[in-house]
Every structure is written in C-alpha cells, then in structure tokens.
C-alpha cells in the first residue's frame, strides 16, 4: 500500500505517493530524477549514496523513503548556491580529489557534515571521518587535502596551496 510523503529536497517540498519499501536513494534518483547521488554497493559499505537528512549524513540506500517524510534532504545538486560552488566542491576540484567522480558526491556530502561539526579537523579526524566512504581511485591523499582546504575556506583562513607536493 502506498504512503503519501512530503520531503523537502534541496529546499523544495515534494509530495509523492511511494511504496513503503522504496529506498531513499531510489526516491532521489528514479522518482525525482536527481542522479548525482550514486549507488555503489548493497551492504551500506561504500557511502556513494550519502546525502544529508536534516543536516545529518546518511546512506540513502539504507533509509526508506517513508522515513524521510517531513524531513529535509540535501543532495549534491543542492550544494552550490546559485552559481557559487560550495567550498567543498571548489576544494575537490582545486585539489584533484576526484578521478572517476562516482564516489565524489557521497564523499563531499559526508565531508560537508564533518566540517559543519568541526571546520578545523586533523588529518586523523578526517580519515576516520570519511571511513564510511570508499574511493577506489584517489588513494585518499587529495581528499584529505581537499577537506582541509574547504575547512580553511569556511573558517575564512588563508587558503593552502593546491600545487602537488613532490618528495
């Protein structure tokens, strides 16, 4: 039996009828046609489907769409403000923190929450903080760097260099 739900997605309230078993990630991708949120696994392991639900990073493959009823969901499509990229988006590009781009939206959404809680995290805090997100391409070095860069930007500090550092 379908349920009526209202979800505010990237600031816009949407009312839909959905099957209770519909996963939030499918609501976003299939029903709302926002394909920036990806699916990388079936065991809540990879984090590619991470979105913010009422400001908290969650794995949308392990949340039912009906659980998002009355809540506010932010996806990668909702990060930028008009033409202004979110600091994390700028940071990922400037620091070469993505290769294939598939894990990137989920990784950035988790990073946004992490920085919302602590905009000056240590490398160790960042590494544990993104441990629910798998990236197969980057080796994580530049993701760590990008999150530090975004933190600096959010704090209003001088931005660190984005040149590659070679030994």
């Amino acid at each position, binding site marked *: 039996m379908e349920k009526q739900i209202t979800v505010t997605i990237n600031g816009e309230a949407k009312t839909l009828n959905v*099957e209770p*078993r*519909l996963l939030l990630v*499918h609501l976003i*991708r*299939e029903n709302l*046609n*926002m*394909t*920036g*949120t*990806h*699916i*990388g*696994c*079936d*065991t809540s*392991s*990879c984090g*590619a489907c991470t979105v913010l639900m009422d400001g908290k990073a969650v794995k949308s493959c392990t949340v039912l769409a009906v659980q998002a009823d009355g809540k506010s969901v932010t*996806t*990668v*499509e909702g*990060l*930028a403000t008009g033409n202004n*990229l979110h600091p994390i*988006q700028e940071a*990922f*590009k*400037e620091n*070469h923190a*993505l*290769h*294939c*781009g*598939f*894990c*990137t939206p989920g990784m950035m959404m988790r990073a946004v929450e992490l920085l919302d809680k602590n905009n000056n995290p240590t*490398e160790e805090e*960042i*590494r*544990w903080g*993104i*441990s*629910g*997100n*798998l*990236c*197969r*391409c*980057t*080796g*994580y*070095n*530049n993701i*760590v760097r990008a999150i530090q860069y975004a933190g600096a930007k959010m704090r209003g500090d001088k931005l660190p260099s984005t*040149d*590659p550092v*070679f*030994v």
Partner: protein
Amino acid sequence: MIQCKTSKEISGMGHSMKRKEDARFIQGKGHYVDDIKLDGMLYMDIVRSPYAYAKIKNINIEKAMKVPGVVAVVTGKDLEKYNLHWMPTLMSDTQMVLPTDTVMYQAQEVAAVIATSRYAAADGVEAVEVDYDVMKPVVDPFKALDPKAPVLRTDKPGKKDNHIWHWEVGDKKKTEEVFKKADVVVKEKMYIPRIHVASIETCGCVADYDKVNNHLTMYMTTQAPHAIRTVIALVAGHVGLTEEKIRVISPDIGGGFGGKVPVYPGYVIAIAVSFLVGKPVKWIEDRSENLQADSFARDYHMEVEMAGTKDGKILATRFKVVADHGYADAQAAPSKFPTGLFSIATGSYDYDTTYMEADAIYTNKPPGGVAYRCSFRVTEAVHAIERITDRYALEVKMDPAELRMKNFIKKEQFPWKSPAGWTYDSGDYHQALKKAMDVVGYEALRKEQAEKRKKGELMGIGISSFTEIVGAGPSRDFDILGIKMFDSAEIRVHPTGKAIARFGTKSQGQGHETTYAQIIAEELGIPAENIQVEEGDTDTAPYGLGTYASRSTPTAGAAAAIAARKLRDKARKIAAYLLEVSEEDLEWEPGVFFVKGVPEKKKTIQEIVFAAYTNHPQGMEAGFEATHYYDPPNLTFPFGSYICVVDIDKETYEIKVRRFVAIDDCGNIINPMIVQGQVHGGLTQGIAPAMYEEFIYDEDGNILNGTFMDYLVPTAVESPSWETGHTITPSPHHPIGAKGVGESPTVGAPPAIANAIVDALAPLGITHLDIPITPYKIWKALKEKGKI
C-alpha cells in the same frame, strides 16, 4: 623540476592544470550508465546460481510471470533459438551467456527477468524456481589436473582434461645449467590471490534496439567501446545486427581498472531482450553480483627461483605458473600473449638467463581474469621478481638496497635486451632507488631497526624496484581478436581557433579530457582550455582499442601529438603564405609562427586556423583537421623504486605502514597533478591486495566474501599518507617522451609492502608470506614456526 615550454594560458605539457571534467562531477552532473532513462525502458535483473557446479533440471517461471510488472523471463533455452546462448571470450575461448543445462560457477547467470521497474524485476527474480542437481565442483586448480577430476568443459568436443594451454619462454636448458652450478639458489612458492577491481560503479548497460531502423544503441560501462562494437557485430551479425547498425556509447565510467574491458553475459542478454521486445532494456549489477561473477584478476600460483653468487650477483631466474582461469579463459589480454606480459618478470636486473612456463586451468569459478590496473600479468611478474630478490638478499645476508644497486641494469646499457626477449627502451634505476633512499632516510631507518631488533620489536623496511611494460602495443605482436592494438586521435580545429579532439580510448577517471588537451596545446599552442576532448561514442570517435593497461598515453597520447604535428605542418604552410615568406624562414614558438630574426612579423595559430577556412592558399585542402592512427614501434618501460616502512605489534600482529615513499619514472610528465593522483590511487590499490583483499572459496566453490562487508576495500584509515616523487627518463621512441603511469603503483606497491613485513619478521625465521598479509596470517606463520 618539470620544465614547461608553454605558458600557463596555453597549459601544454608539464602544467598542473585543474581538470576540465571536474565541473560536472562535483555538481552531480556526471552522466553514468545508470543515469540513463529512456521512454518505455524495461529493467532486467538476473537469477544466479547458488551452486558452483550443477545440472539444471528445470526452470519454472510460472510464479515469476505472475509478479506484477514482470514482462518476460529469459532462459538459455530461449537464447538457444537464436544461437545467442554462447559467446566468444576475448581470448578466443567460449563462455555461456545463459546456460541450457549446466551451471559452472556460483553466481553464474541462470535466467533474466524483465520488468517494468527495478523493484518488479527484483521480485520476479525471487519468484523464479530453479531445480538443480548439485555436483561436486573442482575448485583447486592443482586438483583439476588430477586425471580423476571431472572434465569441466564437456561442451568442447574431445576435451579430456581441465588444462587450457601451456606457455613458455626463455632458455630451459641453459637455465638448468646455471642453477646447477650456482652457489646460491633460493626458491619460494607465491600465490597471488584472486582479487577484484571493485570500481565503485558496477557494470551495466542500456540496450536500445530500434526495430524500425534495425539499429542498436548500446550504452554501456566499457573501457573499449570500439572493440565491443566489433564483438557485438561478430556475435549478433547472424541475426541482422551488422556493425554499421550498432552504436556503442560509453558514458562517464565510475572506475574501470580493467574490469570493464570484457563482455559480460548481462550485456548480451540485455541486447537480445531489447532486440526481441523492441524496447530499451537497462541492466545494472548489484555490488554482490559484480564481485561474485565479474572481472576477477590475478589468481596465479607461482614457483619462483633465483640463482646467484655468494656475493649477491644474480645469475638466473626460473618461474613456474599455474593460472586458475575459472571455467573459461575470459581474460582480456593480447591474443598472442596468454600470460600477458608476465615475461617482464626478469625485472630491473642485469643477467641473461631465465626460463618461464605457465599452465592455465579450468575450475568451477567465475571466468577471467582481467588485467586489473596492470598490463596483463605484470603485477604477478613484478611481485615474483621483487620478492625473490629480497629472499636472495636475505640468503646472502646483504642489504636488499645494496643488492639491487649491484644488479641493476645501468643507464648506459639501454636499450637493453632482456633474457625473455623484450627491449627495454630506457631507464635509470640507480637514480630512482637512490632518490627513494634519500627521501625515506634509509641509513637512519636501518640503524633504528637494528636498535629495535635488540629489544625484540618488529620493524621492517621493504623495497621494490620495478620495471613496467606498458603501451600495448606494436602491431607486429599485439592484437585482440585480430584487431591490431594501435590507437587513434582526430583533431578538428574550428575557424575561431578552438578545437574538438576525439579518441579511440575511454577515460574512466584518468583525466583524458585534460591531459589530451594539454598534449595538443603543447604541439599547437591552442590553450588546452579551448580544446574539447570526446571519447566513447563509436559513431563519432575514430577506432581504437580503448583504455586499459596504461596504454592511453603511450598510444592515443602519441596519436594526439602526431595529429597535432600534421596540423602544425599545415599551419606552417599557411603562415608562410600569409607572411609571404618561405616555410624555412619561419620559426615556431607555442602558438605563433614568426619570421626568423623579425619576431614582430608573425601569425598566431588562431589567425592561421581562421585563414585555413577563409583564405587558404590555392591548391591546399581547406579546413584544419587531422587524424592519426598510432602504431607504437615498441612498448614503453616505466619504472620506479618504492620503499615501505612498517611496524608490527608484538601482541596483536597489527601492521602499521609508517612510511611509504614512491619514486616513479614515467618519462615526460603531461600533468604532474594528475600523474601524482594516479600514483596515489594506484598505491592504495597496491596496499589493498598486499594487506586486505582476496576472494576466498570453500571446497564447494562457495565464495565466502562476495560483498563489501568482507571483501575489504581499504578506506582512508587503512590507506597511508603516500609520499610520492619522480625522476624523468623520457622514452626515446615516444613522440612526447611519455611512458604511461596508471598501473605502476599498483604493480610496484605490493612487493614493497610484503618485503617490509617479511623484513620485520625475518629475525623470527620468516622468509616469505603470501599476500594479503594480515595480522592473522602473521600469527599463523609464527605459530607454525613455534615462535608463539
């Protein structure tokens, strides 16, 4: 220091230009195959075998057909009517699309459910009832060779055993003689386990057959769209789907690493269903299906031997390989190279005697294996030589760095002919290892280790000085299904001086949209920013064999440079015409031709291109376009030296990678930022099999860790903070002196890590451990040695 010949505005080679493709990826506008939605599209989900080896007694689709939304259930018998139930592999073996009577591995496709939604298809899969007669599978490749073992490929007339092929290279007799006489011989059995590329995007497709026009558009996760088009034509030509009626589009790919080279049954079923029902059909694998059924890599059982003198001079090597290919040889390697480029296993060392042999075996496991971020078995080869070199150093009580320095091929010996027949194009191995040692502080670390050993603490230092072999490859030797392994570039410069360039390769995250633009910018002086790069659409791009095995820069990158040089030659003619001087009077600096000695008399490339459309010399072809198909004269031989430092907990045996320094030499560098990114990523894919990843099967052929819960892809916590650098030894035969880099770190890192761990444990009598080396494996080894 990397020298740039162009300004930052032009951003030719050597500039760390920010990636052009990133804008869409960071805004959720990447376009991957699962993002495609077509009118009337149906969804396919697959029923898979729970057993590794079983007869199919019956498939009952009645209940499934009653599930709301289910429109069809397809079985092998249905495909058999169109002779589509079998397909060739890239290695000229055969593989089932859907079985008609027997399943050969766990998770094999048994039937496909087609429905109006993803959810209905999943419900349909649950409702298909399959009756199996379970048989005892052959899981172990050594047992598969037992004369009493059941013959698995009964579909092959006259096949009497599970042996696929035998391969050998080198001088067997001479090698035996050297080994007989040598003072020192070391030998280890090494197993490189079955692993998986585990790109974060799984495989999938949308097959869109248009009945009216008899035309198929195939959107799919493929690293080699052109080759796939040809394969589809070969498989489906007999039902009227000929090559001009097929368009393969490879959209953005969420990581490939070799896993998206083969043709998987799911693609073929989707095409068949779309062909039969005349509607688009989408198939997207789940992660578990991806891990359990597709694209395994490695699975090499090796016996590795090295002979040498007492004072550390290598004399000969010998390698014996048993390759487990699962139920079909579905690896993706050049046709003439059943073991890929394993014969690079003689390594970075100056000696002239080797013998290698390999036997490939059928077992009841998924077919493969793919060249996972590796030029076809180079990972296995480098592990073998770098591990056995350390083993030899241990035996003769010599520092492994010193032993390597003593045996390296010297800079002045290049081009160097290896005993397995390759001609290494260039190298400076001493410099790379010295740099790595300086950066890591090798001497101080050895001192620290000596102190720690006195206290019983476990600290290890491991080196890997690898030689790679990439850029397949020269047409005299390299083909896949007969198609030569050239690659291509086509450049069209528009009247306003902006360009579009298309390639036969396909980026899966490597950054081709940026690096190819930089190569063209270097040659033509048109800003890279103004060069649009496109790949992956067989209707528009020139034919090429695709992106894998670090071949894009060596082949298509070279094609880009040469096509651009053709255009520069044309530009010179136009400039001479415009400036009313002879061509010889002109000099080139990036973006400008000027008259020698009169620099103010000049024409910019933009002016020249405009003239090519508006005011070209009489008799000259109008327009400004060039295409080149590049057939490399040789492979390229990137190399590097890696040093890993580990600390091992004495009670829990947890392994902490304290430092990892990687010095790579990939020749001239197109984009340092991207090269470094490739190295970082490859290193994490190197620590993965070294310490975490492997597939484990039980004796019934059940895979025990076929999900991301237990197949342990490293997170940012396991992945160390990599320290990377480079030396630059340009390839002498490559147009821009580049060599390819993507796979070097994946190939070079595992032996460095394994060597470090074994070095830490050497005082306890450990001489070798197979990867992945886990705390549990260390505990077991020490227990067996009676050390705990």
